């Protein structure tokens, strides 16, 4: 079947079997391998993407379900220069990446949080990341990176208000 949807801001149309997951479509039919395949039972969060702005496990969404909707994957998250954005840079700076397998999912879960909460507390950050498992870092550094990003984005938006 053919499905049309918006992928990382671009209109996309792809012909796929109807009985595959969004995860399989992204990785095997669109060659976007940034979205990781982990547990495939919706527990680890490695396959997290944004569907109409909401964080979902792409292993539990069927490809035909995204018809007409908007999907954002890790490939759609980057700085203006094409390099890491502020959140991704903070992950690097705070040691929030070790093996890196959970990182795409962590970044998307963090972006989902930051788009809804300007000033999340540490416990709100932990709650927002509770569907994403990381076996390396112990989470502390990830929470630090998200917290630092929230602070700097707030400073920026307050700075813009003051200037404007």
């Amino acid at each position: 079947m053919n499905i049309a949807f918006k992928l990382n801001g671009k209109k996309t149309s792809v012909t796929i079997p109807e009985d595959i997951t969004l995860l399989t479509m992204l990785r095997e039919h669109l060659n976007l391998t940034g979205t990781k395949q982990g547990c495939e039972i919706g527990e680890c969060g490695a396959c997290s993407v944004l569907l109409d702005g909401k964080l979902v496990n792409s292993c539990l969404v069927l490809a035909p379900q995204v018809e007409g909707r908007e999907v954002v994957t890790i490939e759609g998250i980057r700085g203006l220069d094409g390099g890491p954005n502020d959140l991704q840079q903070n992950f690097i700076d705070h040691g929030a990446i070790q093996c890196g397998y959970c990182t795409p999912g962590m970044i998307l879960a963090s972006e989902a949080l930051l788009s809804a909460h300007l000033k999340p507390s540490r416990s709100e950050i932990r709650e927002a990341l509770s569907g994403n498992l990381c076996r390396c870092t112990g989470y502390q550094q990830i929470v630090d990176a998200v917290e630092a990003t929230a602070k700097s984005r707030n400073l920026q938006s307050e700075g813009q208000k003051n200037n404007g």
Partner: protein
Amino acid sequence: MPKFAYIRPGSIEETILLLGMPEFENKILAGGTDLLLDLRNHTSSETSLRLIDISRIPELHYIQLQEDQVSIGATATFTEIIQSPILQETFPILIQACKKIGGPQIRNMATVGGNIANAAACADSLPVLACLHARLHLQSSQGNRNMPIEQFILGKNKTICQKNEILTSISLPLLPQGAKGVFIKLGRRNAQTTSRLTVAVVGRLSNNGRVDTVRIVPGSVTDKILFYPEAEALLLNHPPTPERLRQCSLKVIESMIHNNSKRWSTDYKAPVLAKLTERALSQVFLSNIS
């Protein structure tokens, strides 16, 4: 995963027509968080499998305050329930329970109708919905029917819902003025965890300080939803002294063992459930924090 066909009807009527086609083994897809797991264990049969995606049917997707009840469309997600100002106002206990379900990703997808229709023994919304006297509304080509949630669930993953029938909505009668609800969940960790035990309690004190409403529904204990009228009777029309709450909790486990008979897990579950029940009762009747 097995091979399957996928179809997305636009209305309840169309869904019922599709469900009535005997050449397919039809499965309803709402949030998919349980269904996709079940599919991976699906054993192929002769009839071809077809998923009917109801997640985008507008008439199944709402949360509405009506005169004396709140009506929730079957495909409302747990995130939508948690964020609903109507439900935050009317049933904080439901919000409390839904926040404990899965992680953010699961809550963004999973639907309340799916949680009910899948009828897992550990489904987190069931004890609270039963405690709130939820009625379920079903529709089929034969017409509509509705029933209390405890009559809908026949056992583990078994419901009264027929093959050509669909759960369309859940209605919750508003609680009496001044009633309070508490939900406690015990899992192996705080986040994203399957319940080991849960308990939902709704209660109210009359003006003279006696219990005039109490409903106790434990979860993850029995395959069916059970009420505990003998335990509730120990509290009704009495002042809620700590000793009485304790007696009531012990009666709950006595009834649980009577209903369930002893199982391998009873040595653990009985004392823990007694304590959880006592704690929930104290929070309802003895704490001033509303």
